């Protein structure tokens, strides 16, 4: 892996979104990943619809939570994702109104990624932003800087929030993951969370995945 990487500066990441009072982080994590994959394969950055997943992914539970792995299947089975403009976010479940004619991106498959953070970094630098799930300990009060909670307080087994790895690097010799969150720009560092990289902090390496666009 290169020593640092940031997909934001390469145009592969849309602006930070806000899930509102709804546990739909899984949908934002997956659309963020697909946005990146589509950009890398097709050269166009499109902001994609989370609401489509809330309404039409019948395996997941909309605002009550969901899993990225199920969401990839839903996107594949539905026939793609519409854009944010065409199927805009409401923050609560509605009747599915997906239209195959309006789908602007598709995915062919999805893959699970390594638990080795060095390999994850190498994969990210070459292939794009990664959907991950973490233990959100302390995030309610996070303001800035690199979070490095003690392991007993932030167990990798208690995963409860899905986010998007968009880069990594070092700040004053402290290695970090740059994480795009979906709580708006008025949280964290302009909507981003920085987490210590290298020791599986908060389970960041336990549920890494990506869509595949051929």
């Amino acid at each position: 892996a290169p020593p640092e990487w940031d997909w934001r500066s390469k145009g592969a990441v849309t602006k930070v979104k806000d899930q509102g009072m709804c546990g739909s982080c899984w949908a934002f994590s997956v659309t963020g990943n697909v946005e990146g994959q589509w950009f890398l394969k097709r050269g166009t950055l499109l902001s994609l619809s989370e609401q489509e997943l809330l309404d039409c992914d019948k395996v997941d539970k909309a605002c009550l939570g969901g899993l990225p792995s199920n969401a990839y299947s839903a996107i594949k089975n539905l026939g793609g994702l519409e854009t944010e403009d065409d199927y805009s976010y409401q923050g609560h479940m509605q009747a599915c109104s997906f239209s195959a004619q309006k789908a602007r991106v598709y995915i062919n498959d999805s893959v699970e990624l390594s638990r080795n953070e060095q390999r994850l970094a190498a994969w990210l630098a070459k292939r794009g932003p990664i959907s991950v799930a973490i233990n959100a300990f302390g995030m309610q009060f996070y303001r800035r800087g690199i979070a490095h909670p003690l392991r007993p307080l932030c167990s990798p087994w208690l995963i409860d929030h899905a986010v998007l790895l968009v880069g990594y690097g070092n700040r004053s010799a402290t290695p970090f993951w740059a994480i795009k969150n979906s709580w708006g720009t008025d949280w964290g560092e302009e909507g981003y969370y920085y987490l210590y990289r290298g020791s599986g902090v908060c389970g960041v390496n336990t549920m890494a995945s990506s869509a595949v666009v051929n």
Partner: protein
Amino acid sequence: APAQPRAVVARAWRPLDPELLGAARFALKMYNQGRAAGAQAVLGAVQGRVRREGQGSLYTLEATLEEPQCHEPTVCQLPVSRKTLLCSFQVLDELGKHMLLRRDCGPVETRVTDDGNETLKYVLPGLGRNSLSQDFSVKMASIFQKFMHTYNRTYESKEEAEWRLSVFASNLMRAQKIQALDRGTAQYGITKFSDLTEEEFRTIYLNPLLQSEPGQKMHMAKSVEDP
């Protein structure tokens, strides 16, 4: 072990009395240890409670400390905008000898505009009923007022506002503990979620399914160095 049964007295949070003030001053002295006279923090608002057992007393204190204005940027420990600290102390007094058992301090951003709106007026009586010291209540209410202003919060009733203020105060302490235990460079404090209980936050914003459901099986990606 004392021959007589121990008299155990635990008191609720209460306004400051000379005994608590003595413990707070001791905690401050420990906090300032090694500092030059002009660089010492001073005690702001204090509240506390005491638990007595045998001949010992355990003081649990929450206090604001005011750091002096720092005029030398290369040695300043805190930015000028964050010179108020919120501290939790535990002081043990055994046979008249004090010992500082715990000290957690973290900066509080207190750029409060005193625009005198109604919130402050009606949350204070509620705090009084909970036996918090008046100084501490005023300080906390001002910070809460700033939070409401920053994040455009309105509450439906006086009771709701009082409840949210108590949640907010408790969350400041939680944030401070998280700060004390973080090994990175992160700063924790007031965020737009500071008026939510932990349970509310988890229920509204987090995703419990991630740890409980197996999900679709995916095959492993080839690592990037594979041909």
